[in-house]
């Protein structure tokens, strides 16, 4: 992917929705090449924080991509810089996977130029990286939940944005699909992209994220390396549960399982 090496930082960001402050004094520094995870209980403001970072909500404070302030970016340029993968897409059926992925090219096209996106190399690369090439001609509404996730990621990658934001991409995925999806995110980070992801599963945070931000009721409780953040005392404080090191069931992908099997 192109344009790697942009970090995403937030300084003292507040987000209000209908008069209520959802996020308060949010700070973040997500570096290129890292997977940064947001964790926290339901209603902690993880998705809201992610949407604000994507430029989809009004905010006060400062959000920067590299050295540039987010709210000063023109719409299309913002879409070329930040890709956002929603928790649940409202995509209506009837359009093909290739057309969905091609939507990612919109921000690169001139106003009245036509939709030549599906011919663009970035679409092919994004579909290869997420292994959805075989689904190219399938209709969106015929895809399984796991396939839809990967198609949405492919659309985000087709924008060639250096920063990719994902809202709970592993929710509703079974254990194997979830782990494969997270492996894919690690590969993207390895290639120099900035990945920010909301995750519910603390094990996944610990295993796949470089850095983590633990949120509770709109505030940052802890932020640092994922091992520092997902620690027993923090988890007790935020979730009210006891973290039992090495006691819970753990999973990992089989060594033979990397790429031969379809995701």
């Amino acid at each position, binding site marked *: 992917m192109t344009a790697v090496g942009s970090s995403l930082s937030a300084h003292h960001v507040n987000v209000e929705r209908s008069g209520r402050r959802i996020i308060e004094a949010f700070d973040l520094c997500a570096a290129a090449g890292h997977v940064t995870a947001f964790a926290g209980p339901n209603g902690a403001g993880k998705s809201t924080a992610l949407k604000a970072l994507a430029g989809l909500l009004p905010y006060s404070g400062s959000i920067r991509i590299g050295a540039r302030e987010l709210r000063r970016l023109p*719409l299309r340029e913002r879409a070329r810089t930040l890709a956002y993968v929603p928790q649940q*897409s409202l*995509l209506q*059926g*009837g359009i093909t996977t290739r057309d969905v992925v091609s*939507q990612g090219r919109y*921000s690169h096209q001139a106003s009245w*130029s036509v939709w*030549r996106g599906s*011919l663009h190399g970035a679409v092919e690369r994004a579909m290869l990286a997420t292994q959805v090439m075989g689904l190219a001609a399938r209709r969106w509404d015929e895809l399984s939940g796991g396939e839809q996730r990967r198609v949405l990621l492919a659309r985000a990658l087709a924008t060639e944005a250096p920063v990719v934001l994902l809202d709970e991409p592993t929710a509703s995925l079974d254990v194997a699909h979830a782990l494969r999806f997270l492996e894919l995110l690690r590969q993207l980070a390895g290639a120099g992209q900035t990945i920010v992801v909301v995750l519910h599963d603390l094990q996944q945070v610990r295993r796949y994220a470089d850095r983590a931000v633990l949120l509770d009721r709109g505030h940052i409780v802890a932020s640092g390396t994922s091992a520092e953040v997902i620690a027993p005392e923090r988890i007790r404080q935020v979730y009210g549960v006891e973290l039992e090191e090495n006691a819970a069931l753990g999973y990992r992908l089989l060594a033979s399982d990397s790429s031969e099997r379809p995701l």
Partner: protein
Amino acid sequence: MMRMRSSIRHWIEAVLGTVQQSERTRLLAKFSALGLVLLASAWLSLHAGRGDLGDAALSARFVALRLHRSGVAFLGGAALAVAGVVVQGLFRNPLASPSVLGTSSGALFGGELVLVSSYAVLAGAAPFGLSAEMLMPIGCVLGALLSLALVLGLAPLRASAVALLLTGFLLSSLFLSLSELLKSLVQEKWQLLRVMTTLSLGNLSGAGPKQLALAGVLVCGSAGPAWLWSRELDLLSSGEEEAASLGVDLPRLRFWSVVWTAFLTAGAVAVGANAVFVGLIVPHGLRYLFGYAHRTLIPAAFLGGGTFLLCCDALCRALPLRNELPLSVVTGLIGAPVFLRMLARLERGTAQ
């Protein structure tokens, strides 16, 4: 110059160029089929109605009359179907009709107001050297522009599509009430009432070259630009938030969609082609054939909507009744059952 030439080439490729080869052939076949149906309908439409084309003295007159009328029917149907596709895309709802923005009831009210006031003040004579038959169409266009200005001025386009929908709905009721008020004021003048009913239910018996020119300018001048918003409408099918994250300027898309819908509905209403259901059933049927991508759906709706109304108008003329049926009666009788089926299908879809 180079840039212009390449962008024209891009436009041509837009309809057929970006899809796979087999898909392209299939689309071409479908558009050709639609074209053939249109030709057949036009031929039927020329031969429908009273009056024998074999009569050497009159056949040229008949052909000219029916050609104008068929042309107006085609443009009116095309306008309604394209406007339907645009509002359905804008509100992400296949059950939205072109009248939801209040522009068609605004056009109706404008036409009726001009009709009544010219009758009351000028006793039917037309001012400014305008021909009398064009007074009402011009009133319709002005009425549509007024409701367009109101909807753009009052609806918070920045906020959401729902606010726009509500504003349109309220304006629509307002103009309908004003129309009814006007009708109740002139209820003793049955000729006036008759013309007003004809206008609101659609009837093309007055269509001539002037109406054809007016519809041509309004409909082609707005269906083309509406088509240029295909990509944005496609992206909007993913929801407003996702479309915004992919770079779509939503307020701008809403603004121009409302503008083109207003001109399209104005064109249809002004020439007497205000028929119900065309903007609903034609896009619905074409989505099965042509898919959901607006770059093909909008041209298909233009051809399909035009063909549909052409046939309905031919049916109006062919039925051996003392008075011609209004267009809305015919389109409604066809449309309501299809619409009920569509609702049942949607219900089943959500129940699953």
